[in-house]
């Protein structure tokens, strides 16, 4: 057992930091507001991601045969920690790296891999995730968007909601019903410029373009958009969720904000308050727990082991770590949050609002822990 980074891992982190220092503009934090859903960050990512790819930092952990650097899964995590802490300058391209690419590599046809994976590896692809619907959130399998055979392909009708980054996406990883059984669902790789796809922004408290509605009206797609076979969508979702739930290292931003918060509190003389001091360490401990827990999942991936039941428990620890930081900021730096002039603190506070909801609500995570980790009887 060993929780220390190797010198190779340390050097890789330095490489990522150097790259960020060289590529992010000096006014990055104020311009971007560390809001990866904003138009500013999207426009930035359009040039940033290809440069990241050119530097070998887009998919360093993918096999060399598909454009990666052949490095271990820890490199992926280091990259994610640094990017997330910097406000995610890849915009939503982090999803491509975390789960869209790997899922296509696992279930895709050679043609799909050819079409999508290279673009992801080169930092050229913008995706969105068409899962949630107005009546299918936590109960994802209740989704009603339907695809029916039509000509040589499928005709899709329905709507999606809460779709992050849909304003800017060129492709949607879409789930649609292809049968009446609860889990008769199919995954489609839908080009967003297909006639019949309409996107509307839903204003939210987190970020400029965090939420959208996507309306699908008589959207015709060819057979080549089906991923993993007709009716296999639920199986595909299992892979997606494992990668997504331990995907973004949320603690990286919230812990950075905690450190900044302590700096401000020190300047104000408030850090002499024993209550503040105890609560700060409590936040740090929860963040460290989330970090080590996450790394234990990465260790499994680095060793090529299949996803295990611990993923949901680990994700839940990330949720709680973020929640404590959010409460700390709210209690001790309320004025800074109201003034809205510290981008790091403001962004971390906004982000933590979604930690227990994105990628499956915390209560759904607890259901999964109960069922798969504690093996308790079903309700």
């Amino acid at each position, binding site marked *: 057992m060993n929780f220390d980074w190797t010198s190779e891992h340390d050097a890789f982190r330095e490489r990522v930091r150097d790259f960020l220092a060289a590529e992010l503009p000096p006014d990055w934090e104020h311009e971007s507001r560390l809001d990866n859903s904003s138009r500013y960050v999207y426009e930035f990512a359009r040039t940033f991601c290809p440069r990241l790819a050119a530097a070998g930092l887009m998919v360093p952990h993918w096999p060399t045969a598909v454009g990666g650097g052949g490095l271990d899964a820890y490199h992926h995590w280091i990259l994610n920690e640094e990017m997330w802490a910097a406000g995610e300058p890849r915009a939503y391209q982090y999803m491509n790296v975390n789960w869209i690419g790997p899922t296509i590599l696992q279930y895709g046809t050679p043609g799909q891999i050819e079409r999508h994976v290279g673009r992801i590896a080169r930092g050229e692809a913008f995706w969105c995730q068409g899962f949630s619907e107005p009546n299918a959130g936590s109960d994802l399998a209740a989704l009603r968007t339907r695809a029916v055979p039509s000509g040589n392909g499928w005709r899709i009708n329905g709507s999606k909601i809460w779709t992050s980054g849909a304003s800017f996406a060129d492709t949607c990883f879409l789930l649609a019903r292809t049968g009446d059984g609860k889990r008769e669902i199919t995954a489609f790789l839908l080009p967003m410029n297909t006639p019949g796809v309409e996107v509307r922004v839903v204003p939210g408290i987190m970020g400029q373009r965090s939420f959208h509605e996507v309306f699908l009206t008589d959207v015709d797609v060819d057979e080549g958009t089906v991923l993993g076979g007709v009716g296999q969508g639920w199986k595909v979702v299992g892979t997606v969720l494992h990668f997504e739930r331990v995907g973004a290292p949320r603690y990286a931003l919230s812990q950075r904000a905690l450190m900044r918060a302590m700096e401000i509190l020190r300047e104000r003389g408030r850090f002499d308050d024993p209550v503040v*001091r105890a609560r700060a360490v409590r936040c740090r401990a929860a963040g460290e727990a989330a970090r080590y827990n996450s790394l234990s999942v990465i260790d499994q991936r680095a060793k090529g082991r299949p996803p295990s039941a611990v993923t949901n428990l680990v994700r839940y620890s990330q949720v709680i770590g973020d929640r404590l930081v959010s409460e700390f900021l709210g209690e001790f730096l309320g004025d800074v949050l109201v003034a809205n002039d510290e981008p790091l603190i403001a962004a971390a506070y906004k982000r933590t609002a979604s930690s227990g909801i994105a990628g499956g609500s915390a209560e759904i995570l607890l259901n999964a822990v109960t069922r798969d980790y504690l093996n308790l009887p079903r309700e």
Partner: protein
Amino acid sequence: MSMDFDLNADQAALESGIRSLTERYRGLPTPHEAGHFLSGEAIARELREAGYYDVARQEGMGPLESVLLVEAVAALPYAVEAAGSVLIAPLVSRDALPGPVAVCSDAGAAIRFLAEGGTLLVDAGHEVRIVDLAGVVPEPVDTPFAYPYARLPAAKHKGELFDLDPRKLRQYWQLGLAAEITGAMQAALDLTLEYVKQRKQFGRAIGSFQAVQHRLAESAMQVHSARMLTRAAAMSGSPLDCAMAASYAQEASMQVVYNTHQFHGAMGLTLEYPLHYWTQRLRALQGEAGGASAIAQGAAGLL
């Protein structure tokens, strides 16, 4: 060496060695005489004789292996002194100290594991004092907590000055607490998980109710996290990490104690049923070394 969350071969062998040695102590003794605690003296003696208490002094082993031992032993229903002998004694002596090894910050208080023939280390704030308990008979304290507690005769309170940084003693005390709490929490949780699968009310296992399930899942996350922080602290040897592990574990234990008792109902309040052997230990450890808030506050300067 690369990051690795699996135990190495030596660590796995250590764990299975402890497991097989303590196998017959996993259940309750027969006949089981209801009492506030089960003495672990015999287990400590066996572990000591088999060389397990010297684990930290062995080539290639150290605090991590000690923590594995403390955690495993804390999962037994018996109150076994391990943290003092395994984690703290090596700070004081290259040779094993006479056990049990007790630690406290107030020599006048009721002290856990204080016993004739053993050793007491006192965190006296700016210095460390040591008391050799050879020929000293402490006065047992009648307490509902599931550890043996005793008081030191007043003449012995002062002890002798020992050349050790009190911060170092505090750090390893905290690390030992974190490991001991983690082991006891895991055992209390495991017992509760079995219970809620068996116990039926309203015609179904109470473990099938979501109100019960979510709280157990939260507790499982906390136990898992406490273990990670404890192992991380043992490996890094950082005072901040040790404080975070102890503080986190102490705070988590409150929730685990509450939940495991709630789901056992009145059954958990009886001395016949073993839950209290762990939860009354957790209650005792909750405030030790200052408790979660004081430990956290004391470490804030290290952030």
